[in-house]
């Protein structure tokens, strides 16, 4: 592993039971600390240097993680490793979302790339969610969304509600994974209907989910009024994800040039050139009317002050993107609703991939009665090539398939292919069996 900062340490802590680590870092003190706390082997030097990597025994490695704060260093280290140890799985941490895009387009020969900014943004969007939704989750870098809707008891029958599923006007880019009526689960066959008072689990593209939310919530349009304080990379990533979900987003950035740059990047957002510490400004722009305020500034202390001020002005829900691992507790103790640490989220994501590259993300529903898995299908699976309609009906629903890093939402005639990643909805008791079968 290259990088012994916060992310590195968290990963080390989680994985040292399964792997034998050698840590490379330029900072002597950090390494000394690691040796003291975990007793791992260390090499002092630059991870982008071939000699340093060789010194760390790269040739024998099965897993290579580069998680310094420098994107380019991480990528170069991974690319070097690809040559030095062709069999090792490589993981790079990046901040710049553009590298992520490049990786998704297969320009970078790295096994897994995580962007802290995007992870933070997805985490925020998971929390903020969608109107009428009880729970939401995002998969495949935001391409797939899972939402559990609660259909209001007084909902009027329409194009979807009260109709047979096969006849209803459901967006092609979404699938009903399950209907839950009076605590009982109903397998969503074409003949079933969604009725008022039901809970529905839907998997689909963000756009389709927005349509669903409009249908289920009735005429009640989503308000989704979010203010993002701080227009750094994280702030912009959050704004972008929320905008794509149809939220109204305002970004507050004090630096004039940066503010103009953001206004250029995100034409749909309203950019305000101001600081979040100014009560007059908060008053004038009626920030207190916003439903959620997200704080993604550079300093934790400033975030804390601005978040508290926003609370005072009446923002009901505040999310802080903090930098120091220790801050989380402080923030949540002092009335900020959620504190997220992008580094921790990133390390969790890396750990998940390192742990089992096939299963990337698991999400629980209905007090753990159901699970949603994100699994890569085994190369030699006998289900490959069969149309989905011929698979045995077990109540397990394949909600989405990610093929070549693009998500689509399969229908009965679609078939699984080698290398597919699937987003599956299943009952928790079958989860382990399912994972084995896939």
């Amino acid at each position, binding site marked *: 592993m290259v990088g012994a900062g916060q992310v590195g340490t968290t990963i080390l802590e989680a994985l040292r039971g399964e792997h034998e680590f050698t840590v490379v870092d330029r900072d002597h003190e950090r390494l000394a600390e690691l040796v003291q706390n975990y007793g791992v082997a260390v090499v002092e030097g630059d991870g982008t240097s071939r000699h340093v990597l060789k010194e760390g025994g790269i040739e024998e490695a099965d897993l290579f993680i580069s998680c310094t704060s420098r994107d380019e260093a991480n990528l170069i280290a991974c690319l070097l490793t690809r040559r030095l140890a062709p069999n090792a799985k490589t993981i790079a941490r990046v901040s710049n979302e553009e590298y992520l895009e490049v990786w998704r387009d297969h320009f970078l020969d790295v096994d897994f790339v995580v962007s802290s900014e995007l992870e933070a943004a997805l985490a925020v969007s998971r929390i903020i969610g969608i109107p009428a939704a009880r729970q939401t989750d995002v998969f495949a870098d935001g391409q797939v969304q899972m939402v559990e809707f609660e259909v209001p008891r007084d909902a009027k029958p329409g194009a979807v509600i009260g109709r047979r599923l096969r006849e209803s006007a459901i967006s092609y880019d979404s699938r009903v994974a399950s209907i839950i009526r009076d605590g009982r689960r109903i397998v969503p066959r074409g003949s079933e209907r969604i009725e008022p008072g039901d809970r529905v689990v839907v998997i689909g593209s963000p756009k389709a989910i927005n349509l669903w939310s409009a249908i289920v919530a009735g005429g009640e349009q989503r308000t989704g009024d979010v203010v993002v304080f701080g227009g750094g990379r994280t702030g912009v990533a959050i704004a972008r994800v929320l905008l794509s979900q149809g939220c109204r987003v305002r970004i507050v950035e004090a630096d004039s040039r940066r*503010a*103009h740059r*953001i*206004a*250029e990047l995100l*034409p749909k957002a*309203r*950019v*305000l*050139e*101001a600081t979040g510490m100014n009560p007059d*400004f908060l008053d*004038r*722009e009626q920030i207190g009317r916003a439903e959620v305020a997200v704080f993604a500034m550079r300093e934790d202390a400033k975030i804390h002050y601005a978040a508290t001020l926003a609370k005072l002005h009446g923002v009901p829900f505040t999310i802080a993107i903090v930098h120091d691992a220790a801050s989380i507790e402080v923030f949540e103790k002092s009335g900020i609703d959620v504190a997220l640490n992008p580094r921790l989220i990133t390390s969790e994501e890396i750990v998940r991939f390192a742990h089992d590259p096939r299963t990337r993300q698991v999400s629980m529903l209905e007090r753990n009665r159901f699970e949603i898995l994100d699994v890569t299908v085994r190369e030699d699976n006998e289900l490959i090539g069969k149309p989905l309609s011929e698979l045995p009906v077990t109540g397990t629903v394949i909600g989405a398939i990610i093929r070549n890093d693009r998500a689509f939402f399969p229908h009965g005639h679609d078939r699984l292919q080698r290398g597919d990643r699937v987003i599956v909805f299943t009952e928790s008791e079958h989860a382990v069996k399912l994972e084995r079968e896939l």
Partner: protein
Amino acid sequence: MTDTRRFKRVVRRRALGVSVRASLHALGRVLEIVSLALAAPALVAAVYLESPLPFLIPLAIGLAVGFLLERTNRGKGRLGTREVFLVIVLAWLAAALLGSGPYLLAAHGLKHWADAFMESMAGLTTTNISVIAEPGRLPRSLLFWRQFSQWLGGLGVIVLTLALLPRLRVGGREPTIAEQPGQEVERLSRGVKVVIRRFGLLYLGLTIVAAVTFIGLDLFDIDDRLNVFDALGLALSTVSTGGFSPHAGSLADFSIATHWVVFVFMALAGANIVLLFRALVRGEARPLLRDSETRLYVVFAVLGAVGIAAALVAGDVASGWRSIHEGLFQAVSFLTTTGFTTGNISTWPLAATAILIGLALIGGCVFSLSGSQKILRVQIIGKLLHREITQTVHPEAVLHIRINRRLVDERAVRGIISFALIFFGLLALGVLVLELDAARMNFHLNVFPALADTTAALSNGGPGLGFAGPTGSFAPFSDVSKLALSALMLLGRLEIIPIAVLFSKSYWRP
């Protein structure tokens, strides 16, 4: 010679920031080309057995002066951005002077120099302002020159708007295209050649298609008032948004079929020629169809047509299909600053003519052949006003102006505001001059026709109202008014700033 004197001499020689001699050299070349263009009407004169001398004499003078200027100033100074301003203005003036020669020399031409100069200036600025009420009485060759000068002016406009003005950053041109740093270094002549090769050829092609269509109308007896000469003449003044007609009373003589053909080519000439090139030559229609300015162009035309039709119906001038036809044709004719008319708009209700003046003050698309302010500028000013209002409510908001989703540079926005201010300032000044001059000459000129006449000149549209309307001419105006109108035509055609620059001290200083 003492050192002090030598110092003073050297310093005085460098006192000008503009190389006048390099400009004169370039002017000489332009003059040669314009003179050669006079060979065309001379040829027509030969065909109709008229005297070619009215064309050959200016041709010889122009060639001689041009050659002299080029010869004596060869290799003197560098032709840079600053010199281009001077060349543009001098070239248009010289061409207008040269072009006025045939009017004065031809039999049954014009007697007075101011008349000839204004007629020539109107032609070369593609304006439908004329002192000739009965063009049919002119010799054929002179009539051809009158039509052809508009086409030449149109070609000049293409070079001006596509090759020269963007380089001079005049009046917020090209605000949506990011500045290309390489352009500065690239040689001027190359830019001009590329523009002529692409858009000049498209212009020529459109003219040929228009001429063939008109000839077709003649051959198939769809319009019996149209002959081959008229067909050619109409094509030349339609595609250039000039608006001169070979017949008296503009297009009133011709049939409805001819009107619609004119309508189509006017509309094309008022569209962005760069996007038109991509659509017609490269087969990419999408950029043209998705262009917000083009859409607004259609919206303005339709709104104008509806407004005019309503005014005509209310004023009992026309009804039903006729009012729609008149409304649409006249709206597009004024919006593209062509200035053809199918009836006498002087007798129309005030509301209808007011709409026409309003449309002429907007103009066609940017990079088109039409004059006036252009829709893009109006669009950006509209967005600017909207932004100011939003900014009042949200003082901290960072608001950008976008056209076709692309950012508009703030400097371009400033340029556009100043352009619009000068434009309307000149309009007011023009009306004032016409009125003062009328008072001096003791004849009564209503403010509304004066506004219409000034708009006609400044927007390079036309015609005027009242005695200067479609059936009349600008002849009754005094020399002072005629020169003022000529100046307005030139200012409007060159987008004001290049001329205004010449009157600033900083332009002449190093």
